């Protein structure tokens, strides 16, 4: 009993700070977002100092909301322009307070978060700034956490976020949801930001910092929030399905030491089957007449997730889906993955021809997974020598230690097998 009353849900402070910033910014405007963030931090400090001695109060959210609200109202009372504006608009702090209280109620919080989501993903800023702003404002990440998440120096992140806030406030961006006319376009940007944010966390080339799984979790949480609002589209649901399919394999992709395990070597019973089930549910709900890239990518991810093993995967289905993706968006990554699918389905010769052609693609130059894919096809052809050569080529193209480990393991396995063969034949 004592244990549970002394434990907060995971990421409580992060999420409470995001909620408070969203609601208070909606109430007092983007121009005051810095002040609001400071006051929310002070409220968090107060909570920390009081709770560590006295234990967590029965309703920690309410406690922290009240502390933050009091702090911001205190500092606004001292602000002359604010007093003037209030007088002119005929409002009082008391009426403002009632509004805030209402917005802070559970059933209204999502609305404020959603408005903030559209602000963070405003086309005024570039993609990476949008991601940084989303992590900072909507996920409650600290500056140093955003820097760690995006592998940028903390000063760079700080400057970008400051500049972004300034331009948003300067352009008088409102905290209203986009109108019908703009909604589709603005929603596309939000999808793209959430998709990239998720990938940022999912990419294994970025090392095994636990913050990576936090980013994925946050992207999925925000996407889920968006799905529950009528302004979302079938693409939102498909995007959520895609994230959940990928997330089901999150733990199985690395070993205990943090080195990468490729799909073909992953232990499929380690995949999170509850997440796979939930993803399938969202994908089913996302059906619409015009499938987006999210729909197609999610379907591919599903075919992987429901296959009993690598051999029994529906490779021709996957290849066809990549074909449709290529019609929507010409990306060398889609071509690479389609070639792999073709090889796995048995047409190794055609796969190799395609992969060799891709070697000349400027965007894949120096991409070690291309050589890993070539090695894999050689293996399917039982050509161990060529496979080892390709793995060595892949090794020369990456500098990341855990990627070296991955390739070294592959090579060791192959050379051991050939040595075993030799000893047997002697």
């Amino acid at each position, binding site marked *: 009993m*004592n244990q549970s009353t*002394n*434990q*907060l849900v995971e*990421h*409580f*402070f*992060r999420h*409470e*700070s995001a909620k408070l910033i969203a609601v208070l910014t909606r109430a007092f405007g983007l121009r005051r977002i810095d002040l609001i963030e400071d006051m929310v*931090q002070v409220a*968090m*400090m107060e*909570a*920390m*100092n*009081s*709770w*560590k*001695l006295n*234990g*967590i109060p029965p309703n920690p959210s309410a406690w922290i909301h009240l502390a933050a609200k009091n702090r911001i109202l205190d500092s606004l009372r001292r602000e002359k322009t604010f007093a003037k504006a209030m007088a002119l608009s005929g409002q009082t702090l008391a009426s403002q307070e009632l509004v805030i209280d209402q917005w802070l109620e559970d059933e209204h919080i999502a609305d404020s978060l959603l408005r903030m989501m559209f602000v963070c993903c405003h086309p005024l800023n570039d993609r990476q700034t949008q991601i940084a702003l989303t992590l900072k404002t909507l996920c*409650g*990440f*600290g*500056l*140093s*956490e955003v820097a760690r998440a995006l592998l940028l120096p903390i000063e760079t992140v700080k400057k970008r976020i400051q500049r972004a806030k300034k331009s948003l406030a300067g352009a008088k961006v409102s905290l209203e949801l986009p109108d019908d006319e703009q909604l589709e376009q603005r929603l596309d940007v939000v999808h793209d930001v959430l998709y990239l944010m998720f990938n940022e966390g999912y990419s294994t080339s970025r090392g095994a910092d636990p913050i990576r799984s936090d980013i994925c979790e946050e992207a999925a949480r925000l996407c889920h929030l968006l799905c529950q609002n009528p302004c979302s589209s079938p693409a939102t649901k498909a995007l959520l399905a895609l994230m959940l399919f990928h997330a089901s394999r999150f733990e199985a992709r690395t070993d205990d030491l943090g080195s990468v395990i490729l799909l073909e070597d992953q232990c499929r019973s380690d995949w999170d089957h509850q997440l796979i089930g939930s993803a399938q549910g969202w994908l089913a709900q996302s059906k619409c007449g015009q499938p987006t890239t999210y729909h197609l990518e999610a379907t591919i991810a599903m075919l992987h997730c429901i296959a009993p093993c690598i051999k029994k995967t529906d490779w021709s289905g996957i290849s066809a889906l990549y074909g449709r993706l290529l019609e929507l968006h010409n990306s060398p990554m889609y071509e690479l993955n389609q070639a792999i699918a073709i090889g796995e389905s048995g047409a190794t010769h055609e796969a190799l021809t395609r992969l060799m052609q891709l070697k000349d693609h400027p965007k894949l130059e120096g991409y070690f997974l291309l050589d890993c894919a070539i090695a894999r096809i050689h293996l399917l052809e039982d050509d161990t020598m060529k496979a080892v050569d390709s793995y060595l080529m892949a090794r020369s193209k990456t500098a990341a230690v855990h990627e070296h480990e991955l390739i070294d393991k592959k090579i060791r396995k192959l050379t051991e097998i050939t040595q075993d063969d030799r000893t047997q034949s002697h």
Partner: protein
Amino acid sequence: MPKYMFVYRGCENCHEPEEMQKFMQLWMDWIQVGEEAGWLIDKGDGLEPDGAIVNPDLSITDGPFAESKELVGGYSMVEAANIAAAIELAKGSPIAVSGGTVEVRALANVEMANE
């Protein structure tokens, strides 16, 4: 058993929500362990950063008085067999994780000495 005061200074590394939460949890766990084991006789309190100093000439100086590193942030009271044991207890306090220090001081016990 001798009593010791733990004086906490500085708390540099906890400005981000996630860190605050982790840090608070560490403190709560530490306090709970100390109270259950009995050596933490008073969990003490934190101190607000501002205040005032009354000088010898009775003039008043406003805080803050020191760099945040040197600022006393809180205190607790423990009971231990000797200073070495008290230091061991102090080592377990979460203040180090947050980049702060803890000063361990024995109470002089003036009243008892006079009895």
